[in-house]
């Protein structure tokens, strides 16, 4: 199974941008291989239990993809059952974020994170704050 960060690798003969198009195309299948659910807007959210929805820029942010590598490589894989993911690099406007995490805009940096508890959105984070939260939650740092 490939690492997420490999999605943006340049291949011989690539034109600038070819790697980004390839990453967008391959991201959903790779996420599923790693046990992450890919969330589409309009899909029902669980009314009980927890959900952590993570939005990354899979099409261009090697930083976000490396973070996913850290998360999926971290110890307790059962934590990933409560995680869903989406690719913000497919968005065409800032408002697209609202379809996934209401109240999150403006977004300057990815990743973005929404945390639901028993169907209620209890936290929304973006950029550096989201990275810190994810690393702590998945214990990728001491």
């Amino acid at each position, binding site marked *: 199974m490939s690492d997420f960060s490999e999605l*943006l690798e*340049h291949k011989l003969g*690539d*034109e*600038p*941008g070819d790697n*980004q198009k390839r990453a967008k195309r391959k991201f959903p299948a790779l996420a599923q291989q790693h046990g992450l659910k890919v969330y589409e807007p309009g899909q029902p959210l669980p009314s009980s239990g927890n959900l952590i929805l993570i939005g990354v*820029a899979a*099409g*261009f*942010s*090697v*930083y*976000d993809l490396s973070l996913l590598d850290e998360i999926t490589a971290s110890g307790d894989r059962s934590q990933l059952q409560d995680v869903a993911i989406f690719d*913000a*690099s497919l*968005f*065409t*406007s*800032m408002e*697209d*974020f609202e379809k996934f995490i209401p109240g999150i805009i*403006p*977004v*300057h*940096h990815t990743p973005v994170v929404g945390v639901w508890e028993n169907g209620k959105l209890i936290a929304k984070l973006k*950029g*550096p704050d989201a990275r810190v939260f994810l690393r702590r939650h998945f214990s990728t740092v001491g």
Partner: protein
Amino acid sequence: VGDFRTFANLRALQIKALVAALRWLFVTSSLVAGSVNSPTFASALRFTRVTSLTPKGRVIVNLGGEGEVAGVINQNLKVILDDGFVVSRGTGESLADLQKAGHTFVVSQNEFLPFASNSVDEVITNGVPLAQKGEGFLGPGIQPSEVQRILQSGGKWIDNGKTIYIKP
């Protein structure tokens, strides 16, 4: 006649020095405050040849994205002027913090980079979208055509640490 020529040469030198100094100031610092957001303004700037900032006399430009590159000209979108925009990926520093630390920023649209054609030795991009109009949540991303325009012959485009283009 000799005195007049000396005077004229001196004046010409003074004017040249003044123009060079103004250009340097304009390109390297005041753009952040002024914000280049109109195509007309940015187009006019295309003809500005950037005075080198690197010790070895090379012009290196880091385009867009989150995170600054030390010792080069960091270009970004107007959005970096927004309150709360964290520019530095590594340290979480704001634009003001980074300027205070001596980093150089230029604000412009990605479709109209404010650098003269064939004037840049190296372009760096780290984690930035190469998006066209109508794509991308922050608007158009880096345009390969603009990178190719500003690079001089033999100039390199380094994306995420890898050379992906060398201008013929």
